[in-house]
């Protein structure tokens, strides 16, 4: 007969076995005197530990503790860090996306280069070259139309007081502004008071 392990017996008494395992252990204990004896011995130890009375306090600690803390800086309650506001997260995400678009902005000067380059790409051998050419021509036309519609936005940017900035520089400005805003609202460096701070032990 296989006996229950010492670990299982300990977990059994600590109420740390899952339901099926506990049921199996109980079933085994009902028919195994060896394991039952071992469990009883372990249970006796638990009872002995539980029966140990506390020792009487030899001296009062309040006075010496108060005397020591009199020369200790008073504890300061740390401000709870506010949870990141959803709008702040959305604003930051929008800034990142916009910065990415600006970095990748082809610019009106590059549209022509892109169109010419695409048109000059060697065409792969296909069963129906004429259909592919028609599809490619249509795609290029759509691309140019989309970029052309966005051109006024680019012109507006270039007409701003910071007209000298390139799209990449605009992206950097936006990211810096966003970080300054977040820092100013203490969403990054504010202290926290977590509900379950594992570092609370003084030692």
């Amino acid at each position: 007969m296989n006996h229950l392990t010492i670990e299982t017996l300990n977990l059994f008494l600590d109420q740390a076995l899952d339901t099926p395992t506990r049921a199996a252990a109980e079933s085994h204990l009902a028919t195994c005197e060896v394991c039952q004896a071992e469990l009883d011995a372990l249970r006796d130890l638990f009872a002995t530990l539980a029966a140990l009375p506390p020792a009487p306090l030899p001296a009062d600690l309040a006075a010496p503790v108060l005397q020591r803390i009199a020369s200790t800086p008073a504890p300061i309650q740390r401000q709870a860090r506010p949870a990141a506001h959803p709008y702040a997260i959305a604003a930051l995400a929008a800034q990142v996306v916009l910065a990415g678009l600006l970095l990748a902005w082809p610019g009106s000067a590059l549209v022509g280069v892109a169109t010419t380059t695409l048109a000059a790409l060697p065409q792969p051998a296909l069963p129906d070259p004429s259909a592919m050419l028609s599809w490619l021509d249509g795609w290029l036309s759509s691309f140019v139309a989309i970029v052309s519609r966005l051109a006024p936005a680019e012109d507006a940017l270039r007409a701003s007081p910071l007209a000298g900035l390139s799209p990449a520089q605009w992206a950097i400005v936006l990211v810096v502004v966003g970080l300054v805003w977040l820092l100013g609202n203490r969403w990054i460096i504010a202290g926290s008071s977590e509900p379950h701070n594992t570092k609370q032990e003084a030692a």
Partner: protein
Amino acid sequence: MESWAALADRQLITRVLNGQPEAYGELVRRYQAAVYNAAYRLVGNQQDALDLAQEAFVRAYSALGSFDTARPFGPWINRVAVNIALNWLQRRRVPTVPLARGQASAPEANTEWQLADDSAEPERVYLASEQQAQLRMAILALPPHYRAVVELRHFQDRSYEEIAEALGISLSDVKSHLFRARRLLRERLEGRP
């Protein structure tokens, strides 16, 4: 003068953080016996236990600013005491006390055993005291980390997870230390080598 005894722990902590350190004295009075006993079971010496308990309260005072008042103060201060005592034992590299009859005068076991029941018959009182003495000696014979897990599990009723968090060890280490400690305690109490 405000009656500190009428205030809850959370209210006392708030008074302390608002500049009334004397309110901390009430917290000390409420938990000093438990904190002292936690240290005493780990170090086995009254004066050392008093010093460590005092140190636990002083350090806890400094950390009150970050204490979550939604949690009970008692378990927290007891855990602080266990960690301070454990660090003290490890710094001193205190060897485990070999358990043998006649070892009551060993330095680490310089204790004064209290009678369990003054009204009981003398022989019963002696037997109860002797058993308690043997148990205390058996605990002191454990390695420091084993003593700490026994203290947190059997005297502070902490779960495995809470013990792991308190001592900064893994869950498997908690079980390993605890189960082995229990086996060692049984062997010592049963007189097995």
